[in-house]
């Protein structure tokens, strides 16, 4: 199987690569259009800022390529957010794969910190991506913006309010948490994606 990690100006590419290695998968990190299109599985990682990332993708024509991919695609964290229609982070128009918006957490209680950093539970799991993963399992999150609940929601998490911790539409999957840093639960989710 040919697994590709899309290379762009995002922070956690190495971590995703190493997580795949731990599962015995040697992935290719690339921004080459043909290599991405030819892959069996595509992972779209991301830690960073939305407008800078979108500008980078657009410069290289990757924005159009990603939208048209037919094989299973997994967006992680910022990758997932970029697959939504719009992000409040610097007023950024995104890829528009998931018809939902990305908004800034606005806690009314000052004791709730933004960004959310740490382990939180995922629930209402509704996809093969979560096969063998029990509801209320813990995964690792680092994010200040969230995808609202909607028709593509396949997992929910509570922080400030319930939001989409995973999305799914057709061949596109997105997770807000970092499966590559979420211990055994995360490994199971990555393995499930590879098994799709």
């Amino acid at each position, binding site marked *: 199987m040919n697994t590709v990690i899309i290379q762009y100006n995002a922070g956690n590419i190495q*971590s995703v690569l190493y997580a795949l*290695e731990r599962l015995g998968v040697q992935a290719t990190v690339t921004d080459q259009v043909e290599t991405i299109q030819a892959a069996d599985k595509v992972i779209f990682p991301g830690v960073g*800022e939305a407008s800078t990332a979108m500008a980078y993708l657009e410069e290289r024509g990757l924005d159009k390529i990603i939208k048209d991919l037919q094989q299973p695609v997994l967006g992680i964290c910022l990758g997932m957010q970029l697959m939504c229609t719009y992000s409040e982070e610097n007023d950024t128009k995104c890829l528009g794969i998931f018809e939902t918006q990305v908004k800034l957490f606005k806690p009314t209680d000052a004791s709730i910190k933004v960004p959310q950093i740490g382990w939180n539970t995922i629930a209402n799991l509704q996809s093969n991506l979560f096969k063998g993963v029990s509801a209320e399992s813990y995964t690792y999150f*680092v994010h200040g913006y969230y995808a609202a609940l909607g028709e593509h929601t396949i997992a929910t998490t509570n922080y400030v309010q319930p939001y989409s911790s995973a999305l799914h539409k057709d061949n596109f999957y997105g997770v807000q948490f970092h499966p590559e*840093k*979420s211990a055994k639960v*995360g490994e199971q989710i990555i393995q499930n994606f590879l098994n799709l």
Partner: protein
Amino acid sequence: MLTKRIIPCLDIKDGRTVKGINFEQIRDAGDPIELGALYAEQGADELVFLDITATIEKRKTLSELVNKIAHRINIPFTVGGGIKTEDDVSVLLQNGADKISVNTAAFLDPTIIKRFAKNFGSQCVVLAIDAKCEQDNKWYVYLNGGRTKTDKLVTDWAMEAVDLGVGEILLTSMNHDGTKQGFALDITAQLGESLPVPIIASGGGGNALHFYDVFTQGKADAALAASIFHYKEVAIPDLKQYLHQKGVSIRL
């Protein structure tokens, strides 16, 4: 619900963990990768690797070590020690570190916080503060591993650093560090209540009750300790079970 985090800290010198550690489960107690992997297996929520290697020549050793750690460990980890430039950060992140921590260098040149946050994101910039409560009952910032006193109050420095873009604060109380008498609850709570970023409490954790106190009274988001884990005085699974039973939100 977001959980409180338990963070073992490993001091690294010349690529080896410093404190005398002897776990039956691992072959080489001085190997930070083995020890880190064991803690991850036991339920640690994150790890901190603090490089106390004195010489710059050994910096390469650190990036190689970080790379090996990143290959092996499936939870987030922070690397600190002697980080001064964007290149230092870039090399560590490219080798798989999730966050970096800065201390003295950031105090001497606060613009590095701003630059690091802009280039790499606030989420990966942790500010470590070594704090000491003086006779005037005020908490002051210390530098150079606690050897150099400054006139800056901890609360002022922390607030400035948050404005510059740090994503988390690792607060070590020098008064409590090594005492095993409990964390510095007052200053930790003061920062936790006044700042919009998570506070990692460090220094003084000696038993499970101390962790309970720092998460409740101390309002800490995370608690860090070293020797009590290294010397098996507190086992991470037991600690987390205890906190869970006491009603603290914790990942089991």
